[in-house]
């Protein structure tokens, strides 16, 4: 074959079901039972409200830095709604709504956001045993999902793993290695890219020259799909297909959710330095929560009144959670606990360091009592 274009047996699709006005494409509309639709709606609302509450707590100095999620609720919930609780989730650091859906408590999120390792305690409800903790180093968690998926395949289980990461994460070497490994062994992984247009101040187009992030899957020989990430129905439909492929042993899928970070990168960030209000306003019109609400209203699954009472319930729950978290935080914080959980057992040197610190703290206490 002297010179010819090669057929690559992979294509990249785009999927959108519920448009910006809340109008649904009947042919594509997934069949989701009403109670699940309402749970999705509730979670979206709760996620949004809790995010805003955290922002004000942070501004009051009652919690530390955190990465708000507003705008990405559909991109996250559409995925986890298509999974079983026994499936695995390996998040990055901005998947708060997905964590809430999976069962993590608001308290545990608040405790973490206050710099207590105890935010990860099982008894405080950090979610099912198949959920990884938050991972801060961008892109690095994807490989853990691959390892879990390999274990699933080895044990002939039919579980799947979903791992989340941002548009920025696609530039990291770890993204590449994870995608490649998953492709080679056809592992049951959903690679869920939260393309929220920004990696701190770097816009999507400066992150990579490729037109879509979904097409990066072509490099690894498995399908990629781009979905409207502010359309929870589209995200859900794509996730159902990907979960199905994965369970059947047909391997991984890359799902690019096109969405928007409506708030700051973290509470330490000032987005006015790098993006315009117009851009933010334009995306506000595509708000995933409002859109989904319109859809449910039009389907008569909801009424304005029900929404108002739901909002009230959520406010109450959040208030309770903040109270419980603050109570709990009053009872923890013994510095000596920092030696716990690094190893199964403390080495003699660590024991010695722990003991010395204990002694020192009491000596210093005495000093200040006397001083």
């Amino acid at each position, binding site marked *: 074959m002297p010179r010819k274009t090669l057929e690559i047996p992979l294509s990249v699709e785009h999927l959108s079901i519920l448009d910006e006005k809340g109008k649904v494409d009947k042919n594509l509309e997934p069949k989701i039972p009403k109670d699940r639709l309402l749970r999705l709606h509730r979670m979206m609302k709760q996620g949004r409200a809790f995010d805003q509450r955290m922002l004000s707590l942070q501004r009051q100095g009652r919690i530390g830095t955190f990465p708000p999620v507003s705008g990405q609720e559909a991109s996250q919930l559409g995925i986890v709604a298509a999974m079983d609780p026994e499936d695995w989730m390996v998040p990055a650091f901005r998947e708060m709504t997905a964590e809430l859906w999976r069962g993590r408590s608001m308290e545990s999120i608040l405790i973490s956001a206050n710099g207590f390792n105890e935010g990860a305690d099982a008894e405080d409800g950090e979610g099912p045993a198949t959920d990884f903790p938050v991972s801060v180093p961008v892109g690095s968690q994807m490989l853990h999902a691959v390892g879990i998926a390999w274990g699933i395949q080895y044990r002939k289980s039919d579980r799947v793993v979903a791992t989340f990461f941002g548009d920025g994460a696609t530039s990291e*070497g770890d993204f590449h290695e994870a995608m490649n490994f998953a492709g080679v062994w056809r592992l049951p992984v959903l690679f869920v890219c939260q393309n929220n247009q920004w990696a701190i101040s770097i816009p999507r187009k400066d*992150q990579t020259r490729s037109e879509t992030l979904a097409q990066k899957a072509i490099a690894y020989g498995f399908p990629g799909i781009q979905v409207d990430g502010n359309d929870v129905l589209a995200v859900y439909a794509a996730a159902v297909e990907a979960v199905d492929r994965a369970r059947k042993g047909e391997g991984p899928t890359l799902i690019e959710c096109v969405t928007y970070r409506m708030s700051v990168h973290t509470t330490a960030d000032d987005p006015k330095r790098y993006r315009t209000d117009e851009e933010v306003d334009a995306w506000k019109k595509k708000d995933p929560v409002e859109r989904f609400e319109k859809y449910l209203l039009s389907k008569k699954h909801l009424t304005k009144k029900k929404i108002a009472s739901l909002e009230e319930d959520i406010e109450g729950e959040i208030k309770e959670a903040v109270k419980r978290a603050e109570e709990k935080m009053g009872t923890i914080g013994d510095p000596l606990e*920092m030696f716990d959980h690094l190893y199964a057992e403390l080495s003699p040197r660590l024991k010695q360091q722990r003991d010395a610190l204990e002694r020192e703290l009491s000596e210093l206490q005495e000093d200040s009592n006397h001083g």
Partner: protein
Amino acid sequence: MAKMTMVQALNLALRQEMERDDRVIVLGEDVGVDGGVFRITDGLHEAFGRQRVLDTPLAEAGIVGMSVGMAAYGLRPVCEIQFSGFIYQAFHQIENHAARLRWRSRGRFTVPMVLRAPYGGGVRALEHHSESREAYWAHTPGLKMVMPSGPRNARALLVSAIRDPDPVIFYEAKALYRAYREEVPEDEETLPIGESQIVREGDDVTMISYGAMVRPTLEAAEDLSQSDGIEAEVVDLLTLSPLDDEKFSRSVKKTGHAVIVHEAPGSFGPGAEILSRLAEKSFFYLEEPVLRITGFDIVIPLFAREKAYIPDARRIAHQTRKMMKRG
């Protein structure tokens, strides 16, 4: 002279070096319009344009590997790793290449690059944002490891690092970024890499530290002087590698006692080498074991507990006092 925070002083160093030499290129994540997450590169983008202040995709090995190529081509890349907790993504490019290209090519290609990274705790940051692991670089042949302790020396050392013919790892203490202001001359100022400074004189005990720990060490020294009449000589290393072991060894010959303070985990940490050099050079003058006051051999805890981890003036004074009373 203007009073500047360390952020402003570092910014001044970059700005002046960029004005002076068009080979100097600043690159990294968010260093452009955003001015860096700590604003060290604030305004440089406007002053020098997109090419001289290069926002890169999110990839640390990429940033460092690319800088090696840029340096070999004849430029002077100053790259920023957003937090030193993510420098490991680039470890291989540093060890395999930045540190070795001069050697591998027998001087034909050189790597005059600076790798800046904020390190250390004390600013209530997230996981991976508070580590102090300078020992990795101090142990790596082919690198220099610089750690300023305040606005003025940070500026002068950064200028020297940029002009240095070899790769310099430059760790900036986040805790110092906006902690206080210092007079920083507008006119060019440099400091030799590899030279420590005696920042307080005293005859009773030698306290050796660097980076963010110099301030609490000085505070502890004042406390010891006022409450116990113990006069500490305080040495600020400024550079960890090559390590200036002359000044502190000489000081210990006078004082007979030594305390080393750092934030990094103690075991296999920088203090071990400092202690070893002392043992080598001042063995017969040491009246008792050298005291290492350091981070514990654990991951630095999340911020609710970080104060209990990082040595502070109270801990330093307390432990030094106990040692001096015992001695």
